[in-house]
């Protein structure tokens, strides 16, 4: 059952060193405030899962929190590279990073399979691609009915899923609107989940088919206004596309990056954690 707590306490309780963590949000609703709290608490040896690592995993990797990354597209959307991710993969800085690389279709299926309690995801995927040659988690099975050879990958079942949403009601039910990505699947696939929200309201006013996570599917809820910035929260604030462009120069240089993180994340504290 969802327990309301501070972001600090939620991360301290549910994100342990060595844990497998999925912070999701497909360009939209990326849980930056929570990610920054993970950085401030100096979590180490994390296995990070995320379809699009985005700036948040660039920051976690650059700050030395990760030992392994499972992902499907590791760029700065519309801008170029994630330089901290590249530095870790190309030069092992600040620590070597093991990568397990997929396609989006496979990652989406792996979350869905995790939510469905299955050990694997099956898809008509990776045909002709070299990805199966470099990722031992991409294998194949024969359909028992047609004999068709299909791709199989392990389901994503993280220790903890971390997401950001528009709002929760006082009982701890959570509403997600707009581009909903794989957040519902990530939460249902995970052993524990931490949800940050823009605000707490009396009534979600959700229409019958809305994407709602009942309180009893969530471990912890923390209020973090602006918690998705510099990504965005549909209905609250837009994506800071200009910051995504600025990040390229900040992350390109190790020292510039370290200084930026010190100033904007380490010394910023929880309430300003999402400032950018």
């Amino acid at each position, binding site marked *: 059952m969802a327990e309301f707590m501070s972001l600090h306490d939620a991360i301290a309780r549910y994100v342990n060193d060595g844990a497998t963590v999925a912070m999701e949000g*497909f*360009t*939209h609703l990326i849980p930056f405030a929570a990610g920054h709290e993970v950085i401030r608490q100096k979590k180490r040896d994390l296995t990070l899962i995320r*379809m*699009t690592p985005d700036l948040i995993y660039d920051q976690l990797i650059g700050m030395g929190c990760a030992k392994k990354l499972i*992902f*499907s*597209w*590791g*760029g700065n*959307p*519309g801008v170029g*590279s994630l330089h901290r*991710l*590249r530095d870790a*993969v*190309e030069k092992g800085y600040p620590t070597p990073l093991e990568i397990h*690389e*997929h*396609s*989006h*279709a*496979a990652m*989406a*299926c792996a*979350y*869905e399979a995790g939510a469905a309690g299955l050990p694997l995801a099956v*898809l*008509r*995927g*990776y*045909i*002709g*691609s*070299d*990805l199966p040659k*470099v990722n031992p988690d991409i294998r194949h099975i024969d359909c028992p009915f*047609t*004999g*068709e*050879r299909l791709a199989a990958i392990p389901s994503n079942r993280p220790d903890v899923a971390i997401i950001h949403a528009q709002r929760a009601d006082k009982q701890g039910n959570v509403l997600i609107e*707009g*581009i*909903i*990505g*794989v957040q*519902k*699947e990530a939460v249902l696939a995970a052993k524990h989940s931490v949800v940050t929200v823009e605000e707490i309201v009396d009534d979600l006013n959700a229409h019958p088919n809305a*994407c709602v996570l009942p309180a009893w599917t969530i471990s912890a809820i923390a209020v973090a206004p602006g918690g998705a910035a510099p990504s*965005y929260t*549909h*209905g609250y*604030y*837009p*994506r*800071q*596309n*200009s*910051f*995504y462009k600025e990040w390229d120069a900040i992350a390109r240089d190790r020292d510039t990056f370290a200084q930026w993180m010190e100033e904007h994340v380490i010394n910023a504290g929880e309430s300003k954690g999402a400032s950018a």
Partner: protein
Amino acid sequence: MSEATIARDYTPAEMMTVTAARALVNGTTCFVGIGLPSEAANLARLTHAPDTVLIYESGTIQTKPDVLPLSIGDGELCDTALTTVSVPEMFRYWLQGGHVDVGFLGTAQIDRYANLNTTLIGDYREPKVRLPGGGGAPEIATNSREVFVTIKHSKRTFVKDVDFITTVGFGRDGKARDNLNPETAKHMGKGPTLVITDLCLLRPDPDTHELIVTSIHPGVTREQIVEATGWEVRFADQLDATPEPTAHELDVLRELKARTDRHHAGDTAGERA
């Protein structure tokens, strides 16, 4: 028509976008990659193909953005979509389920068999340059009925063999789509049927699937194309001349880009959704 007497007031990049846009037939359902494909697909929608259905992998279906998105999941795409579905639903039901006519992709590198590399330059374990990776492309390329690719033409981008096949065109030998399991064949598209560059159009040879030049843009020479291609590129016997952009196409494209620049420049000035 000598170059000296015709004052062309468009850039090679505009020529590429307009030509890519023209490739989309009105009413096509198009799964759109970010960047150049998105620019071309929206230009098509705003000119000759108003009923083109644009789908982005973030889950937005039948979207009509007023400005070009910077990312694949900008709010603009959701705000102007008919409906927005989850990402698993997008890839499973809509793409793998067979609802996409054209997958429109960009890439970092392409080779003579139209294989795409967006993963890395060099060796996988010790990459010289690490690129973002596959994203949606590997399955867009196999599950769409056909694929268009748009990319700037240079020796760096047009290589004989890509270092890594992220997304299959026709494989290392040009035969990756031949002799498939019949059940797989039922669901496999034709693969890349058209490559649009800033110099020319290329299409796969019907027999070997090697990309050959089928149309040359105005003012471009064969030598320029040969020089910018990393293999001994062949030219079709029936070589077309790509028509120039019309004034209307250029106006619409420039307005779209100006709108986009104004929008993205103002995004941190306190604009609230």
